[in-house]
């Protein structure tokens, strides 16, 4: 039986979503096809801003940096997180202590994380920076692009590996004991236990972990802004930082809007690609 009144029930959600997502997004799309001088003077420019953005070498560089950063972050944090989760005792009083320690980095505000590492890594007074310098290595994250990248990666790994570890731990904790016992009786070695008992059952939580880390790392702003300010040079300037400079610093609303739309589509595309590939691979698997 059809009952069109049911649409009324959905209406509140539609209104909320419209005002929080659709209307702002359309506003941005609207800006992106105009050249705006002031409130009354605006010229329709079509896709010019998109063309310009895609040809902008600074945009391309920031994009490549962004993709490289996300790739590295995922490649380090996911295996490391799983490894940590496996090392946490499954039961007993130590479990709670481990989980609390793991959760601490996640509770720290992002700009504070940046500040902590900015001081921690300083070659003159920072514990890490001074220690590295003391053993004779030349290290300066404000001077060397490589050092800045290493510091940024270290900071992100410190900040976010816990998220992967906690999710993986939750997944591991839900695996019944009998699964391990069966593997023991079947003569499985440690690698096989991980590969055939644990990994397939972690698929769902790892998908969520990778999605969260992928989206967040693509949008990273605060921490590099505090730590390196995008430098040295532009070596750690990622998309969001370049966008902020453009929109807030230079007030180029049209190009910034086109940039935003491209940025949004990029994140959407990457997450969609990842999600569909995982779901397709796992269709007959569990």
């Amino acid at each position, binding site marked *: 039986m059809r009952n069109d009144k049911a649409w009324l029930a959905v209406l509140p959600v539609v209104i909320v979503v419209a005002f929080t997502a659709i209307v702002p997004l359309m506003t941005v799309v609207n800006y992106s096809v105009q050249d705006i001088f002031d409130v009354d003077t605006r010229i329709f420019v079509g896709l010019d801003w998109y063309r310009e953005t895609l040809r902008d070498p600074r945009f391309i560089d920031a994009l490549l940096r962004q993709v490289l950063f996300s790739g590295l972050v995922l490649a380090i944090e996911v295996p490391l997180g799983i490894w940590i989760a496996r090392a946490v005792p499954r039961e007993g009083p130590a479990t709670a202590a481990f989980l609390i320690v793991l959760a601490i980095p996640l509770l720290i505000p992002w700009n504070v994380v940046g500040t902590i590492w900015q001081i921690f890594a300083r070659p003159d007074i920072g514990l890490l920076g001074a220690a590295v310098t003391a053993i004779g290595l030349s290290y300066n994250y404000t001077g060397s692009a490589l050092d800045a990248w290493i510091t940024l990666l270290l900071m992100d790994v410190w900040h976010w590996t816990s998220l992967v570890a906690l999710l993986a731990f939750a997944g591991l904790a839900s695996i019944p004991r*009998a699964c391990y016992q069966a593997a023991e009786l079947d003569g499985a070695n440690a690698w096989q236990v991980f590969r055939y008992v644990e990994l397939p059952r972690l698929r769902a939580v790892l998908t969520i972990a990778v999605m969260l880390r992928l989206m967040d790392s693509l949008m990273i702003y605060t921490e590099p802004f505090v730590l390196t300010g995008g430098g040295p040079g532009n070596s750690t300037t990622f998309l969001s930082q370049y966008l902020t400079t453009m929109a807030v610093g230079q007030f180029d609303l049209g190009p910034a809007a086109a940039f935003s739309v491209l940025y949004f589509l990029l994140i959407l595309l990457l997450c969609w690609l990842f999600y569909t590939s995982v779901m397709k691979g796992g269709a007959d698997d569990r």
Partner: protein
Amino acid sequence: MAAIEIRGLQHRYTEAEAVLDGIDLTLSDGEAHAVLGGSGAGKTTLLNLLAGLLQPRAGTIRFDGRDVTRLGGAGRNVAQVFQFPVLYPSLCVAGNIGFALGNRGWKKPAVRRRVAEVAGLLEIAPLLGRRPRSLSLYEKQLVAIARALARPDVAVVLLDEPLTAVEPATKWRLRRALKTIQQQLRLTMVYVTHDQSEALTFADRITMLHRGAALQTGTPSELYEAPSHTEVARFIGSPGMNLVESEVRGGQLCVGQKAIAPTGLSDGPCVTGFRPEWATIETGVAAVREGIPIAVDTVRPLGTEDGNPVGLVTASLDGKPVHVRQRLEKLQAGSAYLHLDPERLVTYRNEQLATHAG
């Protein structure tokens, strides 16, 4: 397959209470053995000790005379089927069945041959290429059983309530498949269950566990006819054995003040046990002379036997319920009397079997 000898096996999780307290058990090669008991009896602990997943506090376990007590799960070469189907989700059915073979250094063609053989035995050959995820619970448990049967040299196959997760309609199919294969391959199997009918139909011999102690080991009919402990008497049978307070007076066993049969027991109180089908409740004048007065509470019809209606009669003897399975024609309105077959009575003192006739 191996003969199994368990001596003085003891286990405790905490110092305070022993989960298993001195189990002695001998299984011959190719025996289907059921371990029966309620929850908390120590059944699964016994199975885990046999598998090598747990180490006992005391006692020895021997497979064909070889002491395996200190060997772990991989070293003992045992297979186990768990309460719910335990499979490797990312491997296909064939991969699951052959997993343990590959780990023991079998070559690929040999594994494939053996997997096909076992799959044929359980009639799951069409499933070999499928992933566990696409199987029904019943099919998954079949695959888990196939994996347990894959190693031809396995010492013992352990089954931990393997039918629990399977829906009732397919339970009997799985049980029959298991029994057939056990007989065909002459497998030594230990089958843990809380369901006495499963144990009675599956096993050559049964061990009844209660609070960590083995109360009785014997064939299904031994446990049924002459339970050595009142707990066994109560647990086995549906409903269990009737146990009524009684007394020995001057060499006569008296139930409800009525002398039933001569007995060799010394005078004093005892418990008399009889199965629901070993007694009848009758009404009418003829019934009075030998019978014990009893009050009938309910009658549950159970269909007919040789054209006569039969039923389960629940009655009260000294305020305690007594179940009798009998022809219903003997039961009419009027005073009812319980008749016991003196040839088929068992008596207990201190919960232990004192005498049994027949």
